[in-house]
C-alpha cells in the first residue's frame, strides 16, 4: 500500500483549502492525473498524483485545510513499484516542470477543461537532450521560412517540451510551433513580424537546458490553440521570478505606461458601474428578465452552452415567487392558520377567490405584521389656524389642478419632520445588520379604491411646495381610482400617510408599510374644547396615530416625532414660509 502526500506547491505555500476532490475510493488512477483542486493564498491549483493504482482510503475532505506532507489518500495495487520512485520525485520540481498541472484558474471559471495529451502539430520534433537553444525545426515540404505572427514566450519564461512557443504564418498556413527543449528562456532572438528561417535560433536557454525530467506518459496538458499554454508558461515565469502579473507582462502587451490613447475596452460596461460577466442570453431575454425583476445572472440556462431562453427566465421568476411564498409559510416566520370549520353547516355561503390588489395587500400586510414589532403612538394637533391657511391656498391649488387637502399639507409637514428625524426615513437590513438611511423623501399615500387599497408614491416631497404637492396628489389619486397607476408609481416610498378622516373615527393603528419603518394615520378632525390662556376655547383638533417599527425606533423618539408633527400643524406660518 502506498500513500500519496501533498507535495510542495511552491515557495512559501505550506497549505491550502481543498476545493474539490476528483477521486473516490476504488478509482484507478495513473501518475500525473489530477486528483484534487486546492485553493492557496495565491491561486487555485490542480494537484496531480505521483502514484498509480487503485484508491483505497481517502484521508481528507472537501472544505478542509490540507498541509504539505499530509497524507491525502492511499493506493493499493501493482503499480506500487513504480510509485515509490515517482513519489520521491514528486516534491518541488514536479509541479513547475509540468506547469499545466498547476494552472492557476480564476475561481469563478470552469475548471473542467478538455484535456489531451500533447502531440506536436507541425512536425514531430524529437527532444534534444541538453540543448541550450531552440531552432526553428522543419515545418514541412518546401517550407523553409515563415512570418512570426505571435510569440508566446519571453525571457524568463519556463518552457517545456511540446509547449507551443510561437505561431508562424507560412505560404500555406498558420502553424503553432512547439518547443523541443525544456528550461528557462534566456534570450529571445526573434521579434513578432519578422521572417524566420528553418534552422534559425529562436531562443536560448538559461544555463543550458534543464535535465528533462521523465515525463509522465499521461501528463495532462490542456490544449486551447496555444492560448492556454501561453498563459501557463506565463504563470510559471511569474512564479519563477516572484513577479506579479503586471510586472511580467508578456512581450505583446503594451508597456505598462498609461496610454494616452487606448482602444476601448470591449465588454460594454458603463464606466464606473460594476463589471459582470456577459451572460449567455439574447438581448430580448435579458430585457424580459429586467421587466420581471429577475437578475439574469441568477438564471440557469437550459440551452446549448448554458444559453438562457425566455422560458428559463419565466421559470426562474416563478420559482422565486413560490420560494418566497414558501419562505413566508415556513415554520417560524408564519404560523399555519388553523383549519376552517365548515361554515355551510350554519347557512348558505359563497366562496370568492382572492385576486389582484386584495391578494397583494393580504400578502404584504401579513409580512409587514409578522416582521415589524408594531407600536402606535397617539397625539392631537390643533389645526384651527391651519384651516385658515388651507382656505387661503385652496384657490391656488385649484388653479394648479389640485385640491388643498389635509393630506397634502400633511405631506409637507412629514417631509420636514423626516429631515429632522432621519431614523423615520430609514429601513432595517437585518441580514447585514445595518440601518439604511435614505437621502430622499418619497411619501406614499394610501388611496381607497374600489379594487382595494393602493399606495401611490410622491417623490422628492421635500423639494416640492404645497401647491405642487396638492396637484400631484390629486392626479395620483385620480389615476389610482381610474386604474391607471403603473407599478413604478407605487415604488420607492420611504414613509406612508393614511387618512381615514373622510370617513370618521377618533384614532386607529395603521400597519407599517414594510420595509418602511413608520406610518402616519390621520382621523377625522372635530371641534373640541381646548384649554387656552385660562379658558376653554372651541378649536378644531386633528387626531394623529403614528405606528412605527420598534426595532429601530424608541418610544420616546416616536413621541417627539409625532409632537413635532403636531406642532408643525399648529404653526402653519412656518409652513407657509417653507411653502
Amino acid at each position, binding site marked *: 500500500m502506498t500513500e500519496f502526500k501533498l507535495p510542495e506547491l511552491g515557495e512559501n505555500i505550506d497549505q491550502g483549502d481543498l476545493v474539490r476532490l476528483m477521486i473516490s475510493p476504488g478509482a484507478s488512477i495513473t501518475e500525473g492525473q489530477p486528483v484534487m483542486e486546492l485553493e492557496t493564498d495565491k491561486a487555485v491549483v490542480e494537484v496531480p498524483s505521483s502514484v498509480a493504482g487503485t484508491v483505497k482510503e481517502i484521508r481528507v475532505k472537501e472544505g478542509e485545510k490540507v498541509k504539505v506532507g499530509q497524507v491525502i489518500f492511499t493506493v493499493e495495487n501493482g503499480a506500487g513499484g513504480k510509485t515509490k520512485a515517482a513519489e520521491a520525485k514528486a516534491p518541488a520540481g514536479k509541479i513547475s516542470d509540468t506547469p499545466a498541472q498547476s494552472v492557476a484558474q*480564476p475561481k469563478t471559471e*470552469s475548471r473542467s477543461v*478538455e484535456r*489531451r*495529451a500533447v*502531440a506536436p502539430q507541425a512536425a514531430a520534433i524529437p527532444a534534444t537532450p541538453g540543448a541550450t537553444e531552440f531552432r526553428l525545426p522543419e515545418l514541412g515540404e518546401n517550407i523553409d521560412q515563415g512570418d512570426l*505572427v*505571435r510569440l508566446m514566450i519571453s525571457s524568463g519564461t519556463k518552457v517545456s517540451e511540446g509547449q507551443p512557443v510561437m*505561431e508562424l*504564418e507560412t505560404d*500555406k*498556413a*498558420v502553424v503553432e510551433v512547439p518547443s523541443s527543449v525544456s528550461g528557462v528562456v534566456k534570450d529571445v532572438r526573434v521579434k*513578432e*513580424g519578422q521572417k524566420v528561417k528553418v534552422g534559425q535560433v529562436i531562443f536560448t536557454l538559461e544555463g543550458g537546458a534543464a535535465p528533462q525530467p521523465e515525463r509522465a506518459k499521461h501528463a495532462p496538458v490542456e*490544449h*486551447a*490553440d*496555444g*492560448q*492556454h499554454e501561453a*498563459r501557463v508558461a506565463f504563470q510559471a515565469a511569474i512564479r519563477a521570478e516572484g513577479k506579479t*502579473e503586471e510586472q511580467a507582462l508578456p512581450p505583446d*502587451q*503594451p*508597456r505598462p*505606461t498609461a*496610454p*494616452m*490613447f*487606448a*482602444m*476601448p*475596452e*470591449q*465588454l*460594454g*460596461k*458603463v*464606466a*464606473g*458601474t460594476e463589471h459582470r460577466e*456577459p*451572460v*449567455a*442570453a*439574447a*438581448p430580448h431575454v435579458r*430585457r424580459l428578465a*429586467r*421587466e420581471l*425583476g429577475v437578475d439574469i445572472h441568477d438564471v440557469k440556462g437550459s440551452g*446549448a*452552452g*448554458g*444559453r*438562457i431562453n425566455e422560458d428559463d427566465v419565466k421559470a426562474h421568476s416563478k420559482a422565486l415567487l413560490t420560494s418566497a411564498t414558501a419562505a413566508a409559510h415556513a415554520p417560524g416566520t408564519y404560523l399555519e392558520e388553523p383549519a376552517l370549520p365548515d361554515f355551510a353547516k350554519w347557512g348558505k355561503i359563497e366562496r370568492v377567490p382572492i385576486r389582484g390588489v386584495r391578494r397583494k395587500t393580504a400578502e404584504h400586510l401579513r409580512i409587514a405584521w409578522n416582521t415589524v414589532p408594531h407600536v402606535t403612538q397617539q397625539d392631537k394637533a390643533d389645526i384651527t389656524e391651519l384651516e385658515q391657511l388651507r382656505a387661503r391656498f385652496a384657490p391656488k391649488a385649484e388653479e394648479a389642478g389640485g385640491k388643498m387637502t389635509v393630506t397634502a399639507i400633511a405631506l409637507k409637514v412629514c417631509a420636514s419632520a423626516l429631515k429632522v428625524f432621519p431614523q423615520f426615513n430609514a429601513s432595517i437590513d437585518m441580514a447585514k445588520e445595518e440601518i439604511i438611511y435614505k437621502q430622499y423623501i418619497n411619501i406614499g399615500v394610501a388611496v381607497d379604491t374600489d379594487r382595494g387599497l393602493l399606495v401611490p408614491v410622491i417623490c422628492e416631497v421635500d423639494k416640492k411646495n404645497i401647491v405642487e404637492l396638492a396637484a400631484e396628489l390629486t392626479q395620483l389619486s385620480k389615476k389610482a381610482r381610474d386604474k391607471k397607476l403603473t407599478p*413604478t*408609481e407605487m415604488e*420607492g416610498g420611504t414613509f406612508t400617510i393614511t387618512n381615514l378622516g373622510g370617513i370618521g373615527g377618533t384614532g386607529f393603528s395603521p400597519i407599517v408599510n414594510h420595509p418602511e419603518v413608520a406610518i402616519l394615520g390621520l382621523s377625522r378632525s372635530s371641534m373640541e374644547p381646548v384649554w387656552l390662556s385660562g379658558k376653554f376655547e372651541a378649536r378644531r383638533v386633528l387626531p394623529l396615530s403614528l405606528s412605527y417599527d420598534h426595532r429601530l425606533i424608541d418610544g420616546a423618539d416616536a413621541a417627539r416625532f409625532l409632537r413635532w408633527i403636531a406642532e408643525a400643524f399648529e404653526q402653519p406660518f412656518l409652513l407657509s414660509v417653507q411653502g
Partner: protein
Amino acid sequence: MSDNPKPSIAVLGGGPGGYAAAFLAADLGMKVTLIDPEVNPGGVCLYRGCIPSKALLHVAKVIDESHQAKNWGIEYSDPKIDLPRLRSWKEGVVKKLTGGLGQLSKARSVQYIQGQAAFENSTTLRVAKTGGAEESLSFDRIIIATGSRPAIIPSLKLNSARVMDSTGALDLSEVPRSLLVVGGGYIGLELGTVYAALGSKVSVVEMLAGLLPGADRDLVLPLHKRVEKIFDSILLNTTVSAMKEEASGIRVTFEGQEIKEREKVFDKVLVSVGRKPNSEIPGLDKTQVQVGPRGFIQVNKQLQTHDPAIYAIGDVVGEPMLAHKASHEGRTAVEAIAGHKVAFEPNAIPAVVFTDPEIAWCGLTETQAQKENRQIKVARFPWAASGRAVTLDRPEGMTKLIFDPETERVLGVGIVGVGCGELIAEGVLAVEMAATATDVALSIHPHPTLSETLMESAEVFFGTSTHVYRPKPR
C-alpha cells in the same frame, strides 16, 4: 417618477447620441427639444468625424487600388487630384446626411434650437441661440449628449496653421509634402492613410510599443505591415518632446531609445492623441451631476446621473467613444425615462478601424482575456485560405473567434482584412445571441464571400475547417 406620463425632454447636443435619443423620445410621444450649435443635427460624427473621414478613406482606397491594378495587368496613369472638388464632394456628403437628419427631426416635431445651452438648475436651461437671442427653458428631464473634442498635449500646444487636429485634417486645406501624425490610434492611422494616398509623405509617432494600443497584436500585424509600405516611417516607443515653428515647417524633437533622428522638420503635424469629454458645461455645478476624474460624467446603467432629472450619454460618459455606442445609450436613456425597466448592458460593442486593411472586433479580446487571466480558446482562419480574399488580391487578413472553453460559446470576434468592418456585425450578433461554435459552423455562409471566414473559424475550432488543414492534436 413624474406625474406626467409624457415628460418634456431637452437633449443637449445633436450628435449620434443626442439625435437618436431625441428621435426615439419623439416617437414615444414626448415633447422634445434638441439643442446644438450646428444648423442641423449630426454632431462630431457627421460634421467632423466618422462620415467625412470615411468619405475620404473611400477615395484613398480607390487611389490605392488604381496602383495595385498594375498587378492585374491594368495600368492607370498617376491620378490627378482636384482638391477643391474632392473637398466639395466630401462636404456634399456631410450636407446631404445632416440635411436629412434636419428633415427627420422636423417630421417628428422635434423642436430644434440652434444654439448653446447652459444649466440654470437641474431642470432649467439657458439657451444662447445662434441668432443672438437668449431664453430660459424648463423641462422634466434633460439628456446631456455634448460629446467630446480632440485632446491636446499642453506642452506641445503651438498656435500654427501647420499643426492640426482631426477637424483641421478633415478640412483638407492642402496636401502637405510631409505630415507627421502624433498618436498611432485609429483616428491618426485613418487620416494618415488618407494623406498618404493623396501623396503626402506620412510619418506616425506612437509612444507605446505598437500601433493601435489595446487591440490584439495579431490583428494589428497585417495592418502594420501594409502601412509600413505606404507610410514614410513608423516611430514606436517614441514621444514628441518639443515642436517649434520654422520658416520651412514644424521642427519636431523626438525622444525614445530607438530613434534614429532626434529632430525632423515636417510641413504639417496632425495631433491625434485621443479625445476629451465635453463635460465643462456652464452651470453644471448648479445641478447634482458628478464628473469623474477623467472628465466623464458619471452615470448608472440607466444612464442617469447623480441628478435624478438629468441623464447623460455618448462620448461624454466614457469609453468606448464610438457613435453606435452613443446612439444605443441614447435610446436606453429615453426608454428609462419613459419608465421602462432597461439598462445599458450589451455583451458586445463593435469597434472598427477603417484603415486598409480594416480591423474590427467585438466582445472579449485576447488581450483582455489575458489581463483577466481568463480561460479561452481561440480559433483563427487565415484569409490566404479564403477564395474571396484571393480574388481581391488581399490574402493578408485573418478572422478569429474567441470561445469559452467549457460552453463553446462565442465570447469575442476579431478580424483584420479588407472590408471586415462589414463582417463584424455577424460577430456582434453571435456574441449577443450567445451562439456556440456549432451554431456558427452550421450556419451556411454564401460562397465566395469573406463572411465564410467566420464559419470556417468555427470549423477550425473543431479541427475540421475545409480550407485549412490544422487538425487538433489527438
